[in-house]
């Protein structure tokens, strides 16, 4: 196909980070087939912005060059948008910390897919972005969905197992990185977990709890679900000082703990309406500081603007 002037377009894409997961495990679908699945906790503190300029030659240049998954995502999206022979210049700008469980990779990939699609004058649905993302990076979180839309997402298949139809209850999250060395986890080397059948049964109950917490807008029940999910995950990717963190959560009246199941960040969940929130947060920070964790972050899940959408 000859390259016309119209094709030489620029597209922009953006995607947020997440703060690990509310729930992660293995879940049966209606037919009883089991899928790896997760429910992402979006985090608006960090995001990736991408600009993609279509060029007539087939070369894709990624800047910075370290983002190899973004390269894959751009290539796959060009193919998906019937521009297989084309290349382009992909420029990423991200403030998401790496290898902690903030989902920097999926954020890069999603923002890239959005930018490339926009440059090709395509409007992609979140479901389509999910399919491309999983092809590009094997496993993705569900940050391609609107942050107001909570879904149980099969991270290795790129499909939605269940939609919850309501936003999450408003939560205040005090998070920190449990890995003081900062080496983090390389998600690509993290092989799929072989859950016991007891755990697979347990996930049914936790999922029921999550459904009810979202339906009732019940932050307390939600905190119990995230804590139980974090607890099961201790068998596979243990967070240091977990018992101490649980005690601290209980002592400060937190709703519970929440973790990045394949990362190293942990969050204390609070009901923002709770009395003396600032004192409680201070107590957490003081304890974390004593434990050698000097850096923390704080954010809220509340009415937010969605990442920029592709427009044709």
């Amino acid at each position, binding site marked *: 196909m000859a390259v016309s002037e119209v094709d030489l377009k620029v597209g922009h894409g953006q995607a947020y980070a997440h703060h690990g997961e509310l729930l992660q495990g293995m879940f049966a679908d209606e037919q009883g087939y089991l899928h790896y699945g997760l429910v992402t906790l979006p985090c608006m503190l960090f995001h990736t912005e991408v600009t993609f300029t279509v060029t007539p030659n087939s070369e894709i240049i990624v800047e910075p060059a370290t983002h190899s998954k973004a390269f894959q995502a751009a290539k796959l999206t060009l193919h998906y948008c019937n521009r297989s022979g084309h290349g382009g210049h992909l420029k990423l700008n991200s403030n998401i910390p790496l290898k902690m469980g903030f989902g920097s990779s999926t954020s890069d990939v999603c923002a890239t897919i959005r930018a490339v699609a926009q440059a090709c004058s395509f409007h992609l649905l979140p479901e389509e972005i999910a399919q491309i993302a999983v092809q590009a990076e094997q496993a993705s979180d569900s940050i391609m969905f609107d942050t107001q839309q909570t879904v149980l997402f099969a991270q290795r298949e790129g499909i939605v197992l269940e939609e919850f139809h309501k936003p999450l209850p408003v939560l205040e999250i005090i998070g920190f990185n449990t890995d003081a060395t900062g080496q983090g986890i390389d998600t690509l080397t993290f092989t799929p977990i072989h859950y016991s059948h007891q755990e697979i049964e347990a996930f049914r109950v936790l999922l029921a*709890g999550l*459904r009810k917490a979202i339906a009732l807008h019940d932050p307390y*029940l939600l905190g119990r679900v995230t804590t139980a999910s974090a607890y099961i995950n201790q068998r596979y990717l243990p967070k240091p000082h977990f018992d101490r963190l649980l005690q601290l959560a209980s002592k400060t009246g937190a709703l519970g703990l929440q973790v990045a199941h394949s990362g190293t960040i942990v969050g204390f969940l609070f009901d923002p309406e709770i009395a003396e929130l600032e004192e409680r947060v201070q107590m957490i920070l003081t304890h974390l500081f004593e434990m050698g964790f000097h850096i923390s972050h704080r954010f809220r899940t509340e009415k937010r603007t969605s990442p920029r959408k592709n427009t044709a």
Partner: protein
Amino acid sequence: MRKIYPTTIEAIEAPTLIRITDNFYVVAFRLMKLLPAHFILDRAQQAGLLDIGSIIIETSSGTFGLALAMICALRGYRLILVSDPVIDTSLKRRLEELGAHVEIVSGVEAYTGIQQVRLDRIKSLQEEHPGYFWPSQYDNPHNPEAYTPVAELLVEALGHVDCLIGTVGSGGSLCGTSNYLRMLFPQLTVAGVDTHGSVLFGLPDQPRLLRGLGNSLMPKNVAHMAFDEIHWVNAAEAFLATRILHRTHALYMGGTSGAAFLVSRWWAQQHPNATVVALLPDEGYRYQDTIYNDDWLRQHNALLTQLPEQPCLVSHPHEVNENWSYMLWKRRTYEQVLHYPFLGGQSRGQ
């Protein structure tokens, strides 16, 4: 969308949650034991232990045997049930109609020890049929694990549960359900209902008129540390409670349901701010000629006119009298409770 059940098993095993009062709910089963029978046979099938024509051997005179027979009829397994003479004839006919071979162990004069005789017969049958599968509801860990659908139902429908009450026989339903509920509600109070003459919580083994709860042997599936409270309900009390459950709530259930109802209704009245749930294990049709028949009750000296208003609090199993009694088990092991110094009738508050 209206659900179509793939087989009779899924349709009948699904429990129904019913509100009795503002803070008191019951999970009514048509045949609760379908859950563990289904789950145990599914696991065995997945492990390659079962195929069409496989032989399943189990000891049961009650609902677990019925549940197995229903599944075996659908799946083409051969079922041999070793049963004691107390099995009622209509249940025996029903089991045989479903294709099960029911073997009655007889020749034992004293009731005590008959369960051991049944187990001995199982052993010899197992030698006769190599390649058999033994579901072993009392000791198979898949029994308690089968109860996630109940925990799932309660979590999704109620969002919170403070107290779960049910009868204890194999330990599967109450230990299983509470284990899963406590992942979300660690403070959940679990009250087990046993009966006089059952060894489960430290009473001496004796003949029991109330069937379907209690045990003469100690199953591995009774996790004593799961229990906060234990109640002992006698047969007459359970039967009258069964009738009252029917009269006042039109719930036509078996005697174990009556025992659970008696305890849970009281518990819910005592704790008006707590959400209380009782498990009701089976329907009343099997008991039309017994529990629902005054003549039979009179013959067995089990016709009460009035229920006790409250149980008698005891501090040790040895203090349990012949009527409805309870003690605070406090999530201790059997040994911790039984070896706790017993000082006669003296009440020992802790």
